[in-house]
């Protein structure tokens, strides 16, 4: 079976299970509560409930140290059954049971023959089938645009973010390995193994690993597509909620997926399974439910109580808030900023006496639920995880050097080694540097210039500062969010914000309050995020680093763009006469947009993603796990497999092996104690995202003859160090093979990677230390 086919099957399996557990089970329990709402509301509600439940179930079981397959399954099934019984007992459950009982009785007392019994059963099945098909057909006819649009969006997501899964098998970011380690530790009920950290994402991955036996490394490899699919669905459905026209939502989401204007910063992390991106699934639903709450409040005319629909929406808002914090606090920050924008735009609704307290209470409850597991662990003596400190340092503006001004001459860091800085034109680079310097100079004179010449000076300084801020914002937007050749998009973004505000005000005057407020909220949100990009220069709190901010900027910009488009499409449709034309015009608009993009060559191709491991390594790992009993093998490799195979086998660091061989001592006896030992060697060593002169060349005797690199952690495998380690390991393996030609064989080999299999007796393992010519 090819790895591609295996990947496809695994992906489908994960997708089906995720939909089943996270969406369908909540749907079975809560469908009566949301049956009045359109599909996209139900979808959002079930997704949030499902995720929230799973996360917190795992949190509780982990903190009680009783998390395992049985408790997790029971933890899902029992509440689901109780929920179904509680919500539906009076309805179809009871009716079905009564009918089944009566039929059985009739069959047993011979008042119903078997023939009739089976006829009835087939009739019922046929009826159900016909009804379902009818409903689907009816829905297809009535909502054909939604169907086509949604399927098209899903297809584009799969093309953009799924293709690489079949070409690149390894982890695509270095921190995935750390997450893998933490999830592995959860197998021993050791949550927060490296310190207190938002574990919501890990809980979900762990759940699917523990319950369905999907290996964690497989989930981490493939789950990115599932979560990216969900992120884009939330974007699409929020736009469907707030836009009056259907096409605006699909066209805007399509732009986000297809426009070739976004810088890699803005979307490259969607290719990896990472917590921050997983948490993005819950940002827009929070706003989604908040808007529904506002709608509900207006329709309910002050009615209160737990059975009121708006209360239900507020609860969903609360669990979304909770999940953003439980998964990644950057998502909570983003949601917080978005909530401020919503609060300002909807101030007349939010600050109503009967609403404000409830909203604050809901938000606070959500935060408390998320913080509680972490707090329990922290109070129990678990320290904070290192990256939390890093995040706090960023907020406190300490120690994080990604900033244009602070980095001074090392401005290429702005683009995180993606080579974009080099791609940017020299003029553009100069512009950014000049603007940033002007802002700093203006702000650093402490307003002396403003005071020196009275009002005129103040006015001039104000204009100068505003101009500088505007320039810096557009420069940063252009530099971080868009690709360098579209530097004008920084200005366009700011123009869109202004347009959004103007249209929002116009819409408010047109008595379309929700649309107007949403336009204003989306515009203000963009202002806040643009300011966040230049927060350091304005001496404002730096809530998150610029690279991460740019992800949210692009994401939220699409909401603004969608709403502006919606305004004009709606205006255009109003001018069209004839029902049929009105109906098909959105579709025509969407088609025209994308045909134009295609003809103009503005369609983005999927990014070329590179992994930290060679494909061969993952192919080997997959086969090794299939071929061997658990804990009967060792993998000698450079780091990554240590976590990927942690639950199934043992790992021996390649560097450690070479270290033990240094300055060969005849009296040493180095043992790697397992019956099978697999040695992973990169014939063309990677550089682990640390390029150096000569990156990508085959391993060599020259490299092998260099001293073994020293350093901590992954450093010995980064850059040229990896070349040295791999070269030495290769020649070590060659000498081993000359001594044990019958006990070693090539397990797998391609142009870039080779894996040797060593077969030995675990009771008399071979001596792995010997003179191999490069023991320095």
């Amino acid at each position, binding site marked *: 079976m090819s790895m591609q086919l295996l990947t496809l099957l695994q992906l489908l399996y994960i997708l089906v299970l995720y939909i089943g557990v996270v969406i369908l089970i909540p749907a079975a329990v809560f469908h009566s509560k949301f049956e009045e709402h359109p599909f996209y509301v139900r979808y959002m509600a079930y997704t949030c409930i499902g995720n929230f439940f799973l996360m917190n179930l795992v949190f509780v079981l982990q903190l009680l140290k009783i998390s395992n397959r049985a408790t997790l399954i029971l933890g899902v099934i029992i509440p689901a059954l109780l929920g179904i019984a509680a919500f539906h007992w009076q309805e179809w459950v009871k009716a079905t049971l009564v009918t089944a009982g009566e039929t059985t009785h009739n069959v047993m007392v011979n008042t119903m023959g078997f023939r009739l019994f089976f006829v009835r059963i087939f009739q019922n099945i046929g009826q159900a089938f016909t009804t379902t098909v009818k409903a689907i057909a009816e829905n297809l006819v009535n909502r054909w645009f939604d169907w086509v649009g949604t399927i098209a969006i899903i297809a584009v997501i799969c093309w953009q973010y799924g293709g690489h899964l079949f070409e690149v098998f390894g982890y695509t970011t270095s921190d995935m390995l750390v997450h893998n380690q933490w999830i592995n530790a959860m197998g021993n009920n050791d949550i927060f193994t490296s310190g207190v950290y938002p574990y919501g994402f890990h809980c979900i991955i762990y759940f699917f690993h523990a319950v369905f036996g999907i290996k964690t490394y497989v989930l981490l490899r493939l789950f990115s597509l599932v979560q990216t699919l969900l992120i884009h669905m939330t974007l699409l459905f929020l736009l469907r909620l707030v836009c009056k026209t259907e096409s605006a939502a699909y066209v805007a989401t399509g732009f986000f997926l297809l426009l070739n204007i976004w810088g890699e910063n803005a979307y490259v992390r969607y290719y990896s399974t990472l917590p921050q991106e997983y948490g993005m699934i819950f940002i827009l639903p929070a706003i989604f439910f908040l808007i529904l709450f506002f709608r509900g409040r207006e329709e309910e005319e002050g009615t209160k109580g737990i059975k009121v629909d708006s209360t239900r929406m507020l609860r969903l808002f609360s669990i979304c808030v909770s999940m953003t914090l439980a998964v990644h606090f950057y998502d909570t920050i983003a949601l917080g900023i978005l909530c401020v924008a919503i609060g300002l735009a909807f101030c007349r609704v939010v600050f109503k006496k009967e609403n404000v307290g409830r909203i604050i209470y809901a938000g606070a409850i959500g935060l408390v639920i998320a913080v509680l597991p972490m707090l329990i662990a922290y109070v129990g003596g678990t320290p904070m995880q290192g990256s939390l400190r890093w995040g706090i340092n960023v907020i406190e503006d300490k120690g994080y050097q990604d900033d244009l001004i602070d980095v001074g001459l090392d401005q290429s860091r702005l683009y995180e080694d993606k080579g974009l800085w080099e791609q940017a034109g020299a003029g553009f680079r100069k512009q950014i540097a000049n603007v940033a310097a002007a802002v700093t100079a203006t702000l650093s004179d402490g307003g002396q210039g403003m005071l020196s010449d009275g009002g005129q000076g103040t006015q001039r300084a104000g204009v100068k500062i505003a101009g500088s801020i505007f320039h810096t914002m557009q420069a940063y937007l252009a530099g971080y969010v868009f690709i360098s050749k579209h530097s004008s998009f920084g200005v366009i973004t700011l123009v869109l914000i202004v347009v959004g505000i103007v249209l929002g005000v116009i819409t408010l005057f047109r008595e379309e309050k929700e649309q107007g407020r949403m336009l204003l909220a989306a515009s203000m949100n963009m202002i806040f995020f643009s300011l966040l990009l230049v927060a350091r220069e304005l001496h404002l709190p730096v809530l998150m680093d610029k690279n991460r901010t740019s992800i949210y900027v692009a994401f939220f910009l699409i909401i603004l763009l969608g709403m502006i488009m919606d305004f004009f499409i709606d205006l255009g449709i109003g001018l069209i006469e004839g029902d049929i034309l009105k109906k098909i015009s959105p579709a025509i608009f969407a088609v025209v947009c994308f045909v134009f993009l295609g003809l103009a060559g503005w369609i983005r191709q999927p990014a070329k993603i590179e992994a930290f491991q060679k494909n061969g390594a993952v*192919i*080997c790992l997959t*086969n090794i796990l299939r071929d061997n009993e658990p804990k009967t093998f060792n993998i000698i490799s450079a780091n990554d497999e240590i976590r990927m195979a942690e639950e199934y086998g043992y790992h021996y660091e390649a560097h450690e092996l070479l270290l033990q061989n240094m300055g060969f001592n005849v009296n040493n006896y180095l043992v790697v104690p397992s019956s099978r030992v697999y040695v992973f060697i990169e014939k063309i060593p990677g550089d682990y995202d640390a390029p150096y002169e000569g990156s990508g060349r085959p391993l060599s005797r020259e490299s092998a003859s260099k001293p073994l690199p020293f350093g901590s952690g992954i450093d010995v495998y980064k850059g040229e160090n990896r070349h040295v380690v791999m070269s030495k390991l290769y020649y070590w393996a060659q000498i081993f093979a*000359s001594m*044990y030609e*019958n006990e070693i064989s090539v397990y797998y080999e391609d142009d870039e990677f080779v894996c040797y299999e060593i077969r030995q007796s675990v009771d*008399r*393992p*071979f001596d792995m230390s*010997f003179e191999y010519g490069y023991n320095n």
Partner: protein
Amino acid sequence: MVSRRNFITILTLLLIMIFMFMFSGVIKQELNEYGTNSYAEVEADEKALKEESNALSEKLAVRNGTRADASAYATGLETGDWEKRVLFVSRDPSNEVSKVVTSWCNYMKRPMIRSTTLTDLDLDQIASLPEVIILDGEAMEWTQETDAALRLAHGGACVIFARMPSAEEMRNNQRLREMMGIKTVAREDQHVDGYRLFPGFLLGTEEEYVEGPGKEGCQDLDLLIPWYVTGEGSKTYVMGVVKDGSKESEELPSIVWRHAFGYGKVFCIGGDFMTKETGIGFLTACLGEKDSYDVYPVINAQNLVLVNYGGVSNENAETLNRLYDQKQIPLFRDVVWPSIISMTERSGNKLSLMVSPQMDYSDDVEPEEGLLIYYLKLLNEGYGEAGLSTKQFSTVSIREKLGKDRVYWEKEAGEYSLRSLYLHDFTKYDEAKQYVPDLRTIVTDESDGEPVFYADDNVTCQETTNLLMTHRFSEDIKMKAFETALGFSNVVMDMSLVSHPQGEEDYASFSRQTASNFLTYWKPYAGFDKTTLSESDLRIRRFFALDYSDHKQDNEITLHVDGFDDQAFFILKLNQGEIDEVTGAEVMNLKNGFFLLDVSQEDVKIKVRERRLFYY
């Protein structure tokens, strides 16, 4: 009242049932030819096989002498044979090790050259050196021979130390230690608790030969050994076990191991394995570990022989009455036979029943009529074949005994061809064979000699490889060694222990012990064929008559069999890759890289491929 119609129906049903039950018995009785030995009907030109065997033996006959002599010898051999030659070096060319090496070369169809020294070899012509050089390390002068041995091994020769030089020599000779991969000589004499045999060397499972629960009284290995600690480049096949827990396994003494030295391989066989025929298994195993593959002929026969089977006369009635409250005939018929059949059915073995009509000719008890034919009926129904045993507890001559037995046999089953004989004392062979005119094979007691050989031009001899009543550690190693080298075992149950018990142990414990031993220790060899003595006799004749050559090119192993007669068996030891396709033979996987080839034509081709991964 039963109606007439119902009565006829019931009667018809009864008749049908009676017919159905009786029919099978009647058919069996009528069609079974109890009086003939079906195993004697296999047609084979035994004379031609013997002639081919003689010709081959003559061609490969051992030569003594120097390089010059060897070159002359080479002219009489085909190229393939000459390439397979073995050089055996020992100051004492007639010692036990020499005999073992000689018989091994005979079985493996390899020409053998003996020499007393390595120094007369042309060491500059390593490519022209023998494929295998076996050194009797204990019988060599190492002050003179070390240089030559080192040059040979370093140059790429396969050197096997059939016995190790003395521990003192090893301690003092650093270069020899280096060649053998010995890091240190920890002690010259160390008492170990037992041995550990690792899998993949000898055919069968890995084993720890240390006394413990269930293994009481099994230890009979030499536990006083020199403690050699081997290191990098070495692979240990047998190591000494010291149970005090003070040492890691890699520090424990190596007894049999391999070391990669320069371009060559050095095999070291410590202990006393090479002074007995067990050595043929160790030499075969060493060769099996030398290259990526090895292929060699085997007999492929697993015999279960019940010797001294009484049960046709009521001898030793007093003792048996005391122990069992019954006489010998009912004891054997109603107790012994069912338990033996149960054992053979579970193992799938065939029986070779060596009947002993009488074992005491000094009493008046004579064998009873009808019982021999009873057993022959049972044997003919699928359990095996019958032969005669010569053991007796009286003092009559073997002529007299066999004369009387012959008379009884001809009276009871005159047409049954007697082809096998259990002759516990091989020196009486010439006397005995006259009384068994159809004799083709004899079974003799265990010895340290060759397990199979021609007793004369017409008769083969199959030595007892194992007695079932005991299974001590050395016996287990012997079993593994013979299975590895020859695919042969001749397991004997001495039933005189039941008819004439020596102590107070009853049949239940005898049966339990023998069944347990047989069903446990021979289980890994289920891939070999289960045979009667006549069947194994034919396979032995074919084995002796054949010669073979093999080579590997790219991924294809080619095997050519000379003297092929209808069927031949080979073992293929594959150390790299897996079998892709075989033409000219059927393949049976014997585990741990061993495969049995059932060759059906002269040329066999085996394609080997690298292991394919499931996910790619």
